[in-house]
């Protein structure tokens, strides 16, 4: 019997078991390579959590995962699978870069900061608009169109950076560095002003934007009429129509918002860390967002927890690759794939075990008599 489980098993134990299966397999892989998985785990955790520098890096990666995880989660609530986070983040970064290149000589910092936020969201949303429109009004499948748009974004960025935006005299396809007015303050600078000394890391103010984004998604999805419409469309488009909702509008709005959330990765990376436009700064964050959303069960709290886990994995994995050269940082990619497989496609694999366990639990004596 499906659904015979109490909520704490359904929402707590089953997803936890799925993630544990994924990690157990990753551990076996480490064993197969000929290393000790427990030692690997210890190095990873220490590398990600011990010391200010480690924590700073972990939180910096977490920021990106929160953005892309929320992007995927939001779309999932409307029954849509946005694989295009990677491209939307890329184009979001392009927007921020163009803004900074155009305005860093004339506009002051206090204007560039909010503009950067708005522009990254707008460009990310813009890149989702065409697939969204096609899904809503022309019936073309969002999964395929967003995959195509990822490749289109990549081609566009290569073209622009190689031919148009490349800094004069530069050999590598990068724009010139932005003037200081277009740099997002690093958290270590912000905290230093408040009298707190922490290690220098790429962690910047966009982590605050990520926190706000979480609250925003939570309020939007569960506490506004638009969120109600969004979830209704996600449950049943036909039912939504009978409830007087126009699914087309909801689909376009949701996907654009999803694109905007992914676009913030560009804000973090370009304005916050690299301070110039460059290639491949999205580094697969868009795809990790899928794992994050599935693992976090599409809830902002879950997304934050899953993002933290992937932040730890990314930062700890880099340390691990340094300590044990036979384990490369691509191990994280393997874990990601396993998490998506077991928390997503095989999410029901462990359920029957829990159902059997739960059915066999010792019951109160009165029932047996």
């Amino acid at each position, binding site marked *: 019997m499906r659904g015979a489980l109490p909520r704490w098993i359904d929402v707590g134990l089953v997803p936890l078991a799925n993630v544990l299966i994924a990690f157990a397999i990753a551990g076996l892989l480490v064993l197969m390579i000929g290393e000790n998985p427990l030692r690997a785990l210890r190095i990873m955790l220490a590398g990600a959590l011990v010391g200010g520098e480690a924590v700073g890096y972990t939180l910096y990666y977490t920021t990106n995962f929160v953005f892309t995880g929320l992007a995927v989660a939001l779309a999932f609530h409307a029954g849509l699978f946005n694989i295009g986070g990677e491209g939307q983040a890329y184009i979001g970064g392009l927007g921020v870069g163009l803004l900074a290149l155009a305005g860093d000589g004339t506009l002051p910092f206090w204007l560039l900061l909010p503009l950067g936020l708005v522009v990254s969201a707008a460009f990310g949303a813009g890149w989702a608009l065409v*697939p969204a429109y*096609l899904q809503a009004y022309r019936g073309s499948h969002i999964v395929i169109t967003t995959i195509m748009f990822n490749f*289109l974004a990549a*081609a566009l960025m290569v073209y622009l950076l190689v031919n148009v935006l490349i800094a004069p005299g530069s050999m590598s396809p990068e724009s010139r560095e932005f003037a200081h007015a277009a740099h997002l303050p690093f958290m270590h600078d912000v905290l230093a002003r408040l009298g707190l000394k922490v290690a220098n890391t790429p962690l910047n103010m966009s982590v605050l934007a990520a926190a706000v984004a979480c609250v925003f998604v939570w309020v939007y999805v569960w506490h506004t009429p638009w969120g109600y419409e969004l979830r209704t469309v996600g449950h049943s488009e036909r039912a939504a129509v009978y409830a007087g909702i126009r699914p087309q509008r909801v689909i376009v709005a949701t996907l654009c918002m999803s694109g905007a959330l992914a676009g913030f990765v560009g804000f973090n990376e370009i304005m916050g860390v690299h301070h110039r436009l460059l290639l491949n700064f999205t580094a697969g964050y868009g795809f990790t967002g899928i794992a994050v959303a599935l693992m976090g069960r599409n809830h902002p709290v879950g997304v934050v927890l899953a993002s933290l886990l992937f932040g730890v994995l990314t930062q700890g994995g880099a340390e691990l690759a340094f300590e044990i050269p036979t384990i490369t940082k691509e191990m994280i990619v393997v874990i990601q*794939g396993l998490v998506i*497989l077991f928390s*997503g496609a*095989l999410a029901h*694999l462990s359920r029957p075990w829990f159902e059997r366990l739960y059915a066999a639990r010792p019951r109160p004596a009165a029932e047996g008599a």
Partner: protein
Amino acid sequence: MDEALVILLLTLSATLRVATPLILCAMAGLFSERSGVIDIGLEGKTLAAAFAAAAVAAVGGSAWLALGAGILTAVAMALLHGYACITQRGNQVVSGVALNILASGLTVVLGIAWFQRGGQTPNLMPEARFMPLNWPGAAALADVPVLGPLYGVLVSGHNVIVYAALLVVPLTHWTLTATRFGLRLRAVGENPQAVDTAGISVAGLRYRAVLLCGLLTGIAGTYLAIAQNAGFSRDMTAGQGYIALAAMIFGKWRPYPALGACLLFGLLDAAAIRLQGVRVAVIGEVPVQLIQALPYALTVILLAGFIGRAVAPRAIGVPYMKEH
């Protein structure tokens, strides 16, 4: 004039070689999707097969053994996809994405652990590869105008997988339209209830379709690693699995149109390589990225319904639930 002909033939010949993995993957996807199982994972299966083939060729030194390893690997992944989608009724897109990511990570992790070459496999000797076959008479005909270069450059001089890929297309068409298995396969992708009512196993048919998909992606991966190249390099599929997916959709889930799309996309790629840095009158330097982006752009335009209508199999993506 003669030189122009040779350039044209060389470009077409390159097209054929570039299109080969696309054709194999597109037919693979076609089998899977016509049975109702979405396959985003063509890319991952091909990549994993490429790695397995290159690794076995490097260790075992036999191209045929490598082909077997490539096929086995892709089939294993296809079965995993099948288990998730058919038996567990999981989300098919999610499963495909998982396999793609898994393959892109696993090939590098294992590659570095086994070969210590930054994710590459050792360079292969010609004996461990599928080398171009020169057809009899190519040399003798070389001096005959038109026919000589046509035979020598375009027809002869490819490796065995290129010819096999071209054979797979009519075979796929025949299987889908003329065999009992093919008719049932298509029925199960359109209306699984009807197939079930007729007493035929929906899951069994879908598993067979997924297996065929694994077989063909296995050949495609092997081609990339030990025929087109002399070893595996990280992420060597570079999106070709997705291009094949696009080609399959572009061909509206039918073999011959899909072949046409693969050849068109292959031609674009071959032309992009040839036009690199070349200045053309009026346009100036051709932006190569634009040509490379065309397959994706064309597919989006097609999906938008501007070039006819691409209608997917009706039951695609819907796990089959037997009624009790």
